[in-house]
């Protein structure tokens, strides 16, 4: 769906300093060369199967289905991947590509820490240097992941600029990349930033929908009626949607973090509260004030706490192919607790946003309909934060 120069409809593009232009041009050329290269794909698929543990399970959530009394629910278990989230799919792809390009150092931004952990992990595996930028607020919310990254040999740089969250980590990683390009690849963690990142990250995450399609065909002999995933920048969502975009019978639903509600300022629901803008290398929708100053967004989930959304999602919204719905902190926390009790699966608080919306619509659907929810990550990292949300004095 990418137009020349990385446009998705009116969105996307390459709004970056001139200093980085040759780096993204070089990246695009390398990606175009390797994406259909049999040897590269054999190597990547081997890592997917034997390191990340793919394919991930498509699990029939029988208790949840019975309890909600409507559509049959399947969970796409990206939480079972090595490092506990979908992030590893993209990192394996990009790190392998970077290595082929002769880069020896990976830098990355991270919100919840999952992308940082995945990057640190793959850097360790491939013998590359790794520096992860993380908002200072997020280093506090996700202290265990900070230690995990250090354990894996990465340097973690706490970012104090701006709001000290994911957007500032992205800004700082971009600044670092402009100062050191020759040996460094910026391993962007979501389907955002300048072209070609939204395309590259999508392609490496598209394995999620490819597997869902195959697995559901085997189990049910048909397509799902709806695929539901959480959206921050939107990488697990685009990965879950991509191979269904041309199947109009499949509803594609992205769940945005509404924080304390889309009628408050404490929200990160970009499609529902933002407007068209240019930031972090792309044209897309952003939460911003009337003068274009980027809004200090909020969500209980560090991974969805981002004021923008990937350009392909913005386009899918424009053309009405996907629907983007807000889910509040409270709804997500309830879903987090619900899935833990009913299926014995503790989802990431990010993924719990998708579970929450499925809980709303499943009862209204017929029993012969099928919903697939992508559980993008596991919830171990969130347990202490949820306990605090519930008033328990528990720290990592």
């Amino acid at each position, binding site marked *: 769906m990418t137009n020349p120069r990385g446009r998705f409809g009116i969105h996307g593009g*390459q709004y970056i300093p001139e200093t980085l232009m040759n780096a993204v041009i070089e990246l695009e050329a390398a990606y175009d060369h390797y994406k259909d290269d049999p040897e590269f794909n054999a190597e990547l698929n081997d890592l997917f199967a034997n390191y990340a543990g793919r394919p991930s399970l498509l699990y029939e959530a029988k208790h949840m289905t019975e309890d909600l009394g409507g559509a049959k629910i399947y969970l796409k278990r990206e939480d079972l991947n090595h490092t506990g989230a979908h992030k590893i799919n993209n990192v394996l792809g990009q790190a392998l590509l970077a290595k082929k390009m002769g880069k020896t150092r990976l830098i990355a931004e991270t919100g919840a820490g999952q992308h940082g952990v995945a990057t640190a992990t793959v850097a360790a595996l491939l013998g590359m240097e790794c520096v992860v930028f993380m908002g200072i607020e997020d280093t506090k919310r996700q202290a265990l992941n900070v230690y995990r990254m250090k354990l894996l040999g990465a340097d973690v740089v706490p970012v104090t600029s701006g709001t000290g969250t994911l957007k500032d980590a992205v800004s700082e990683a971009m600044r670092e990349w402009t*100062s050191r390009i020759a040996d460094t690849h910026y391993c962007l963690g979501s389907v955002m930033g300048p072209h070609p990142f939204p395309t590259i990250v999508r392609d490496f995450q598209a394995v999620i929908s490819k597997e869902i399609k195959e697995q559901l065909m085997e189990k049910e002999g048909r397509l799902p009626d709806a695929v539901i995933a959480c959206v921050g920048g939107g990488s697990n969502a685009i990965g879950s949607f991509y191979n269904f975009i041309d199947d109009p019978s499949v509803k594609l639903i992205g769940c945005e973090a509404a924080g304390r509600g889309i009628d408050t300022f404490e929200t990160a629901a970009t499609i529902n509260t933002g*407007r068209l803008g240019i930031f972090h290398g792309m044209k897309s929708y952003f939460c911003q004030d009337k003068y274009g100053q980027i809004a200090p967004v909020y969500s209980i989930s560090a991974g969805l706490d981002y004021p923008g959304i990937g350009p392909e999602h913005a386009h899918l919204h424009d053309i009405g192919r996907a629907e983007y719905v807000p889910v509040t902190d409270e709804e997500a926390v309830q879903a987090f607790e619900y899935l833990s009790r009913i299926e014995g699966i503790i989802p990431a608080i990010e993924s719990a946003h998708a579970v929450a919306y499925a809980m709303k619509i499943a009862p209204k659907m017929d029993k012969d309909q099928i919903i697939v929810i992508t559980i993008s990550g596991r919830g171990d990292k969130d347990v202490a934060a949820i306990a605090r949300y519930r008033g328990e004095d528990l720290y990592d």
Partner: protein
Amino acid sequence: MTNQPNRIASAFENGKAFVAFITCGDPDLETTGKVVREAVKNGADLIELGIPFSDPTAEGPVIQGANIRALKGGVTTDKIFDFVRELRKDVTIPMVFMTYANVVFSYGTEKFVKICSEIGIDGLILPDVPYEEKADFQPTCKKYGLSLISMIAPTSHDRIAMIAKEAEGFLYIVSSLGVTGERQSITTDVGAIVDVVKKNTDIPCAIGFGISTPDQARTMAQKADGVIVGSAIVKRLDQYGKDASGPVGAYVKSMKDAIKDL
């Protein structure tokens, strides 16, 4: 005052040009006005007025700090327009805005650029708009007589000729990798970049990023038509606040004196 053609060119007619960058509203617009006038009095040839942005990804810590101080002080694009309208009553040297794409785009590019031309702004520098994306802004700038200033970086290599051929106003040569901020030394072969530029265009070249001392300014100005200084000025605003105009004026004088006879 409306736009005059080639006012930017006049900045380069007085020996090597000294371009001074100041963030509007740091710490308040009254101070910005005093600092601009003092810089002009002490030899600045062109003023780059920064419109603050919440997330200035091309800036180092010093100018990031100025952006935060200015926004905290309540400055907005509209207040800056009013301020420039007032400033233009007595400041006649060329002035350009330096800001980020979203500030212009979100305001409405046409509306923004039209107001710029009405208040006497001569050009626009948008560090997150490279050659490939200038179509969003350049035709509108052309319509209203503003120059969209192009940047060339140490990594531009094969792109230099392409950028230079279509450049307007002056070319902003980025001296070093990374973000804005003072540097001990500049290692890029700026002279080689300027040579390629000069083969492709007649418009002047000014070198920015990392220049803070008169010696550095002299070395850089020998290779180009002027130098751009931001962080070293903004640092004085951070240090002296509302009393910064004196120290900035003295600094501008020392810099212009170092390059004017080259």
